[in-house]
């Protein structure tokens, strides 16, 4: 006699056939359109209203090998955030740009100086990209210090205030992850409108862990993103966020009724997609990653772009793998 609602809901999840999974019969482009609309609705992005961006250059700094520009924009009425653009020195013409996402376990400073693969911006710059770090909601500067309660503060190695912000978002029919995707899109608008040295046909997005998840969703929604490296952040729901208690910002109400993680790969096709994982990952485990990728492979084949998706599984720790950059060339 089962008294566990966890077990009950796990069974419901396993037995749920996602209602908007591609059936491999209908027109693929038509499916993509419907599926993307549904994802936008589930993320709560359809509730968000654009506003005058009030683009402002906050600072310009010349560093040894790159130039750094920090700008702020308003992505919604009464919400602003900063983005940091770094462009390698001594490069002429239009630059490809890598949107580098950081968050729960790393921060803006580590994006250039960090160890263990956290220095995504440095990796991008070393490969000739401009890098764009978008300050995400509830991380680093994008929360109020008072959001952290005294009982939370001693346990936090980095600042994240996802819990209460996400609760408020959910009550409103929004999601934190949808808000982050929205901000990425608005930052990209501002970048392309104000920096004429950026190649708008060569935009990639990269992230590790929860930021890998965010990169994946952003690429599914924003077709200007030409390539995505989602590292240690994609696996079937059953194997990952529906089994382990991940940060609240990962969750999307009702998503499992329509999609599993692998299905979103079809929204990225035929653009380039690299999934990175590790056999040591307990949060987005290998079996779930492989199961999600099995669906992605089929979707890329349906899109006539089988060569454009790649899966890399390492045996190291849950870190971004710099070799993945080679796979999106």
């Amino acid at each position: 006699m089962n008294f566990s609602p966890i077990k009950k809901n796990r069974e419901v999840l396993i037995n749920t056939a996602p209602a908007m999974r591609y059936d491999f019969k209908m027109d693929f482009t038509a499916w993509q359109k419907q599926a993307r609309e549904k994802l936008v609705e589930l993320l709560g992005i359809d509730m968000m209203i654009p506003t005058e961006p009030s683009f402002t250059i906050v600072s310009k700094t010349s560093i040894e090998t790159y130039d750094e520009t920090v700008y702020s924009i308003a992505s919604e009425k009464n919400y602003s955030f900063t983005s940091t653009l770094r462009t390698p020195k001594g490069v002429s013409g239009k630059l490809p740009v890598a949107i580098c996402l950081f968050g729960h376990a790393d921060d803006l400073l580590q994006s250039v100086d960090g160890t263990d693969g956290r220095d995504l911006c440095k990796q991008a710059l070393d490969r000739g990209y401009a890098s764009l770090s978008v300050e995400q909601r509830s991380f680093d500067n994008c929360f109020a210090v008072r959001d952290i309660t005294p009982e939370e503060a001693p346990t936090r190695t980095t600042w994240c205030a996802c819990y209460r912000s996400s609760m408020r978002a959910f009550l409103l029919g929004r999601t934190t992850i949808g808000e982050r995707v929205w901000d990425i899109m608005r930052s990209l608008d501002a970048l392309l409108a104000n920096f004429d040295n950026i190649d708008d046909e060569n935009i990639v997005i990269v992230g590790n862990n929860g930021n890998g998840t965010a990169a994946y969703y952003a690429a599914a929604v924003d077709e200007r993103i030409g390539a995505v490296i989602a590292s240690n952040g994609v696996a079937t729901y059953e194997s990952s966020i529906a089994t382990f208690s991940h940060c609240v910002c990962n969750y999307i109400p009702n998503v499992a009724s329509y999609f599993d993680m692998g299905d979103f790969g079809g929204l990225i096709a035929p653009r380039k997609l690299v999934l990175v994982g590790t056999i040591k990952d307990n949060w987005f485990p290998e079996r779930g990653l492989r199961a999600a990728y099995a669906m992605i492979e089929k979707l890329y084949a349906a899109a006539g772009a089988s060569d454009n998706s790649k899966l890399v599984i390492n045996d190291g720790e849950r870190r971004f793998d710099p070799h993945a950059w080679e796979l999106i060339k």
Partner: protein
Amino acid sequence: MNFSPLIKNFDLITSITPECRYDGESDFIAWQKKAKAKLAELLGMDKYERCDPEFNIEYTEECEGYTEYRFTIQSEPGYYFPSVMRVPHGKSGKQPLMICLQGHSNGFHISLGKPIYPGDEDDINGGDRDFCVRAVKEGYIALAVEQRGFGECKGIEGSGTNCYQNNFRAIMMGRTMIGERVWDISRCIDAVLEHFDFVDPDRICLMGNSGGGTATYYAACLEERIALAMPSCAVCSWDNSIAVKRHCLCNLVPNIANYFDMGDMGGMIAPRKLIVVHGVTDVGFYKPGVDKSYAIIEKAYEKVGVPENCYLVTGPEGHRFYADLSWPVVHKMMKD
């Protein structure tokens, strides 16, 4: 320049006029029908599947002053939960029932006044949380229901609650923990009416404190067999409760703020009886939010012509139940 998503989203919550708020003029019954349909949708009530309850009495025990039954039912295929009912001795005929829901605690044994884990005695002795003990003394049949995420129904061993993991599995599938708890209460009422013919179907009451109060309120909105609901330390506007302070995620109903604030839902309970209980120094459900919600509830009850069927009990302390203040109101409303 605001960089805080917390501030941004709070501004949104406080500036919304909920779409399903009663306008004070249109046909009230028609509004109730539409509002209940919307609330049921938001709670995910269409996701739960009826099944054979497999009703099973685990034991019947004669105790001092009452007979105790422990039974289990299956409320969804593959999910069961226990309930314990105490029937006071010396009564005849059909008797009133008080269903008792604990808030976040070690389990429904708190309602029964039976400590199991360290800390239970403090819970039982402070805050009138032994709901069933008091209900029997007041002459009611008392029924303690174990809610999902608590006690024996939390899915892990040991004390405490386990809402986070439960909640997000539910939410991802368009379900909600509150909806699941409301469903379980309704299935429990089905079982009680079918198997215990001494329960008066016209005098089914439901009470709870904190998380139990929340479940009480939502259940009463949708379950019309509940003649009287007594949610304690739970009915409070979003901006003075779950949207302003860190509360358990099991309180969450996605998208609800676009349709209802807490007070708006009280109209779905009218004309049935509603006793809202709160403590003036409650720091999880602030008094201004309780007052604001109750003002909306009062108007709804006036509209239906039964202002005497709702009441606000104000306790002098904080987050707890106030049995001495509340039970006289129960008796007055139920005329017993």
